[in-house]
């Protein structure tokens, strides 16, 4: 009997054993970390000849600039390198790269094949883990297209480390501006996302506004005053051929934007002092009226699935943001903060809407959930407007105009966290950017 009682008491004690001893591994939970750029090293891509070496140096520079430009990475300057990469296949001296705190290492090689094609290979290493991240990759292109190859290398590195979709190999169509404010000439221009390779699509004979890329990046919608009043044109970017979309005399058409299928176009029509939204099939030219209100409805933008449209309306007295079905119907207001809201653009991910906000005499670029919650203002200046999303929905580009008669417009980009605000370099003034999808 005594033995049974003793067994019961001890069993209870053992059941409550955690206070006495630890079974299994030690468990801890980490909930606080740091947010800082990840240091990386990108030595010049190696080559077996002088021409290739120069190309390798330039490619490494563009890769490093792409990554550092995100604000998520920090380039370690080459003069800090301990180890030199002389061969693409030689083993990595991890200790040397650890010593300079390089957490990622990008190595590459450049060759020109017998057909004159540029062949670029690269590898990515996690220095502290002492292993390669993903497989090596080889890219082939023309020598003139070396910048695109560099962007693609950077895209691969960016995606492998962050898990985000890439966006470096993309372009931006915008309005290039020159001259004083009261006599400013404007023409359409297109460039790489980082401001390189600018080319012009129109001359400065007539004012052009608000270009918008098609989902495949091959066409551009824009508004032009070529006929004396605003009309919508569509241009093939490759051939630079343009045609006017359906338009009637006495009405002004503007603010066009493609739907996700590339067939539908939503835009505003101003007739008799009233502005409403219309939807058009771009091939047939058949249009449908989406709103019918005495207020001003403009700046429509499709959701990525094409089911809804977000737009700007002053039906409540001040410009606010509304969402309605893509076929028209009852609209639901989503912006309720102080100030005026405009130029909404749906994120390619579908989770956020970027907008322009005017409040207390300043302009802001901000983002909010599609139900209007979690509004966050990312910028503040004399005049910020016209946001456009990067293809992966991580970065927003917009127009910033400075104050005064000599003020000029330029392009800026900002991460959706509100960090890494930086100017996009352009040779002339620039406004109304529209980001293309990732190039094929």
């Amino acid at each position: 009997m005594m033995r049974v009682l003793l067994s019961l008491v001890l069993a209870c004690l053992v059941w409550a054993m955690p206070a006495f001893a630890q079974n299994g591994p030690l468990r801890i939970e980490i909930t606080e970390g740091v947010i800082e750029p990840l240091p990386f090293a990108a030595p010049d891509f190696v080559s077996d000849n002088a021409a290739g070496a120069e190309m390798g140096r330039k490619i490494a520079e563009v890769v490093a600039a792409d990554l550092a430009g995100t604000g998520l990475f920090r380039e370690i300057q080459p003069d800090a390198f301990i180890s030199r990469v002389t061969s693409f296949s030689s083993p990595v001296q991890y200790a040397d790269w650890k010593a300079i705190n390089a957490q990622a290492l990008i190595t590459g090689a450049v060759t020109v094949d017998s057909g004159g094609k540029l062949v670029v290979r690269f590898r990515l290493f996690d220095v502290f883990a002492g292993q390669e991240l993903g497989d090596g990759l080889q890219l082939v292109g023309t020598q003139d297209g070396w910048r695109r190859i560099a962007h693609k290398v950077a895209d691969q590195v960016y995606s492998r480390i962050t898990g985000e979709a890439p966006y470096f190999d993309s372009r931006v169509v915008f309005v290039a501006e020159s001259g004083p404010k009261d006599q400013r000439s404007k023409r359409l221009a297109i460039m790489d996302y980082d401001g390189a390779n600018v080319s012009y699509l129109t001359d400065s004979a007539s004012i052009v506004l608000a270009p918008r890329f098609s989902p495949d990046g091959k066409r551009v919608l824009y508004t032009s005053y070529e006929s004396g009043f605003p009309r919508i044109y569509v241009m093939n970017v490759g051939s630079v051929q343009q045609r006017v979309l359906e338009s009637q005399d006495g009405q002004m058409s503007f603010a066009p934007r493609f739907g996700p299928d590339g067939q539908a176009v939503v835009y505003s029509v101003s007739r008799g002092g009233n502005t409403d939204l219309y939807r058009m099939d771009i091939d047939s030219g058949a249009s449908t009226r989406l709103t019918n209100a005495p207020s001003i409805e403009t700046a429509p933008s499709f959701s990525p699935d094409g089911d809804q449209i977000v737009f700007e309306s002053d039906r409540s007295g001040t410009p606010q943001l509304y969402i309605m079905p893509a076929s028209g119907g009852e609209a639901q207001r989503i912006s309720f903060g102080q100030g005026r809201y405009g130029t909404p653009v749906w994120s390619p991910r579908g989770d956020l809407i970027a907008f322009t906000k005017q409040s207390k005499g300043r302009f802001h670029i901000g983002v909010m959930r599609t139900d209007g919650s979690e509004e966050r203002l990312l910028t503040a200046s004399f005049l910020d407007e016209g946001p456009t999303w990067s293809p992966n929905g991580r970065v927003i580009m917009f127009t910033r105009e400075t104050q005064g008669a000599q003020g000029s417009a330029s392009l800026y980009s900002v991460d959706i966290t509100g960090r890494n605000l930086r100017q996009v370099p352009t040779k002339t003034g620039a406004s109304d950017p529209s980001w293309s999808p990732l190039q094929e």
Partner: protein
Amino acid sequence: MNLGQIISGAGHLALIGWAVFGGAFNSDPMPFEVTEVTAISSEDFAALMDGPRAPDAVANVETPEPPAEGEGAPDLSSNADAAPDSAQPEAAASSEPDTAPEAPDMVPPADTEVSDAPPVLDPPQEDAAALVPEISPRPQPRPAPRVAPEPVAQPDPDVKIDDVDQQEAAPDETSEPVQEDTEATAREEATTEIVTEAEENDVANAAPPRSVRPRTRPERPAVQEDTQPAARPQTDESSVNDALAEALGQSGDEGQGAPQGPPLTAGEKDALRVGVQTCWNVGSLSSEALRTTVVVAVSMSEDAKPVASSIRMLSASGGNEAAAKQAYEAARRAIIRCGAGGFDLPVEKYDHWRDIEMTFNPERMRIK
């Protein structure tokens, strides 16, 4: 007539008499002038009296002879007067034109908005200790390239960035060198939250709408039971062991791998947690990866360094496979980087931290 009336009558008479006759007897002193007089001698007086006199008239005045005829007229030649030597004053050096006074920098007053709406106060919770002031001073957040649990002030630009603050040390010329030269280091500037451009100068956000309420009294910690085994009767030891083994349904050989000795204290666990989180960089993670919690297992060597080859992901939740992979790699980098020098763990408790499971939960790091 009594004495008082007599005195009164005499006094009145005296007063009337003084009023009537008193003024006549007193007179003001006669006005007089004071003249200064100077004494002079008789010669001086005579000289004064002789003064200039008019000349005596002359009776006979000779008439001058007319000039003789035939005499040529005198030459009337004259030389032009020499121009007076009037030296022109040297022109003074032209003075610098007065510079226009600089307009003082006029800073326009900031626009203020005054709302008539009364502040809305949330009803206090039941356990609220007291209402707190609506506005309390709070340091203005500013943007920094690094977000960390602890804010770090902007270091001197000449100071090297390191994980710890360290004062510069240089040899003292007057004494024996006892310390090597060490470069001054400081931790990299960091802030505890992301500050956007819109928030950077937002004065309205300089103060919180309300102060943090006082925390409720912490719960009394659980009583730590003595981990030392109590003295047991010698006679019952074998029977107790048998009973324990029987109760657990285990043989006496099993359970030998369980760590012995006291477990890690809360402070020792916190030191390990802080040691890892300072290297857990989620800044380069995607939004999807920031929604993914991963559990990572790692084996440690006795010098408190992680065995890199032992690091593996046990589980992941909240994101897709690709996001889990990114989150795991960030966690692995944190363990290896911060463990390269060995974590701060007590060697005598090695059995307790030989194997560690770390849960990396980025929920609080999404948007700060």
